[in-house]
């Protein structure tokens, strides 16, 4: 076992004292550990954890890891059809979650671990190694893909982020972002484990006044939010208790928004970050409170241990960002991945278009065409199209976003059939998460069908 894995696993006694949520009961880590041991899965077996934010989720995640299995967190709202697809594409051995119905997943063995049900689905040879971690890349790479990280790479990235944001054991961190995403899990939760800071976990629904109240009552000093939450706070004119630092990541923040946030007296330090799951996830940070105003349109400079380069820049310097980081994933798995996004000299292709100025400031320009941010959530339009194409009458689907950021799915029918659009919408709603369901579905005539 690596030192990083040992540190995470050994943290549970101490963590129990400095982590809390708003639930009634605290799980007993030892019981969870023993519960997973009794499943007797092969080392390296992947375990899908279906749970919302909470201490219990984090302790299950660590107990899975400590048993030599491979934890994979997933949104609890994920539909059975996608989970079944993930079972196959990621070679998932067991699925756990509160109120999980084992019958849906053709479970061969069922157990109760803590407050969660465990369904053992498959005992085929695992595809991973003990102390690997699977992080789903729902937004960036399609719905059935994941990055295989090691615990070391995640601890390395969390450590780089802690250093960049000056996070220490004296801090009290609030998690409001989903812990099944890399920011909440790695940057905040693993970051808190290794920094020794206190961790308060909250969950949806998000409410600006309650957010302020939780910060005040728990004397929170640091918090990470999305640009969508930041815009909501600005729009409402919410006054927060003084925070030592606020970090924002996940989407673009405009220079005007950076200036508005900096004008708030309750934000002492403001960090704008950029990352992607494959990189572990954080790559760069802009400490806006001390940065020159002309850099407010950037995501700052890469962490000191990370190298970046812009491939094939155009006349304006816009090109594909490649990064070389010690926290890079081992590989991507699942779906129809035909090639790994790595170069022979160890750089990772981010799929994002950037410029980089002489000082090293990175400025985001755009993403690959299939990736959109809708309602604050990253999504891959290809995933929506693939679900629509499961309908027997649909030959081809293409999803785009209009100027108002609402999703439109255009459908082309087989044999010029008239499509039942209501039925197709039901199919989409039963398979996709709410933010992925298109606002409008249109049937196009086959004469304008261009694949």
């Amino acid at each position, binding site marked *: 076992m690596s030192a990083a894995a040992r540190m995470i696993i050994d943290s549970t006694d101490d963590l129990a004292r400095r982590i809390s949520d708003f639930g009634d009961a605290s799980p007993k880590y030892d019981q969870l550990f023993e519960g997973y041991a009794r499943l007797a899965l092969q080392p390296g077996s992947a375990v899908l954890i279906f749970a919302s934010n909470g201490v219990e989720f984090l302790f299950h995640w660590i107990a899975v890891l400590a048993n030599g299995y491979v934890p994979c967190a997933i949104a*609890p*709202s994920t539909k059975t059809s996608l989970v079944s697809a993930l079972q196959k594409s990621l070679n998932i051995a067991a699925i756990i979650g*509160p109120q999980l119905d084992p019958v849906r997943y053709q479970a061969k063995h069922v157990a109760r671990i803590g407050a969660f049900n465990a369904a053992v689905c498959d005992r085929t040879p695992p595809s991973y190694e003990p102390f690997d971690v699977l992080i789903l890349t729902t937004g960036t790479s399609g719905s059935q893909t994941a990055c295989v990280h090691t615990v070391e790479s995640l601890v390395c990235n969390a450590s780089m982020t802690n250093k960049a944001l000056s996070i220490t054991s004296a801090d009290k961190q609030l998690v409001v972002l989903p812990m099944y995403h890399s920011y909440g899990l790695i940057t905040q939760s693993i970051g808190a484990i290794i920094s020794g800071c206190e961790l308060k976990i909250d969950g*949806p*629904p998000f409410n600006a006044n309650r957010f302020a109240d939780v910060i005040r009552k728990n004397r929170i000093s640091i918090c990470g939010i999305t640009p969508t939450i930041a815009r909501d706070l600005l729009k409402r004119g919410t006054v927060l208790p003084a925070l030592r630092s606020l970090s924002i990541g996940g989407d673009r923040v405009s220079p005007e928004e950076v200036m508005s946030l900096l004008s708030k007296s309750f934000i002492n330090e403001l960090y704008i970050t950029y990352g992607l799951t494959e990189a572990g996830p954080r790559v760069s940070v802009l400490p806006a409170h001390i940065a020159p105003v002309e850099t407010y349109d950037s995501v700052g400079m890469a962490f000191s241990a990370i190298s970046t380069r812009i491939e094939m820049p155009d006349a304006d310097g816009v090109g594909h960002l490649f990064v070389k980081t010690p926290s890079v994933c081992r590989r991507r798995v699942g779906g129809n991945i035909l090639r790994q996004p790595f170069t022979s000299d160890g750089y990772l292709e981010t799929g994002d278009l950037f410029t980089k100025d002489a000082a090293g400031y990175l400025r985001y320009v755009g993403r690959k065409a299939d990736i959109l941010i809708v309602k604050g959530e990253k999504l891959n339009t290809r995933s929506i199209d693939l679900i629509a194409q499961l309908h027997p009458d649909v030959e081809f689907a293409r999803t785009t976003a209009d100027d108002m950021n609402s999703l439109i799915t255009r459908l082309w029918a087989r044999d010029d059939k008239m499509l039942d659009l209501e039925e197709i919408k039901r199919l989409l709603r039963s398979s996709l998460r709410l933010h992925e369901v298109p606002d409008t579905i249109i049937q196009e005539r086959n004469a304008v069908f261009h694949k």
Partner: protein
Amino acid sequence: MTNIEDCLKDILIEDLFVEFEKDGILPTYSLRQDLGIDSLGFVELKEQVEKRFSVVISDDDFTPENFSTISSLTSLINRCAVPTGVGSSNVVS
């Protein structure tokens, strides 16, 4: 079970596509932990509740505590209901 609880279960199944049998949803289940409602799901749930029960849920009432279970949400709807019963009298048992 009140009609409000019954209607909330319909919303969860028909509008939020929660994958549970109606009879399998207990009023004490956590909407977040047991039924897997996420942040956008709660926004959708609030909108559907406002529409179906003709109530307005203020930002201050849109909290994890009020949206904890079907029981707590039922209590909130009863508190928010217009005294004349407009829109909600046909669902309260």
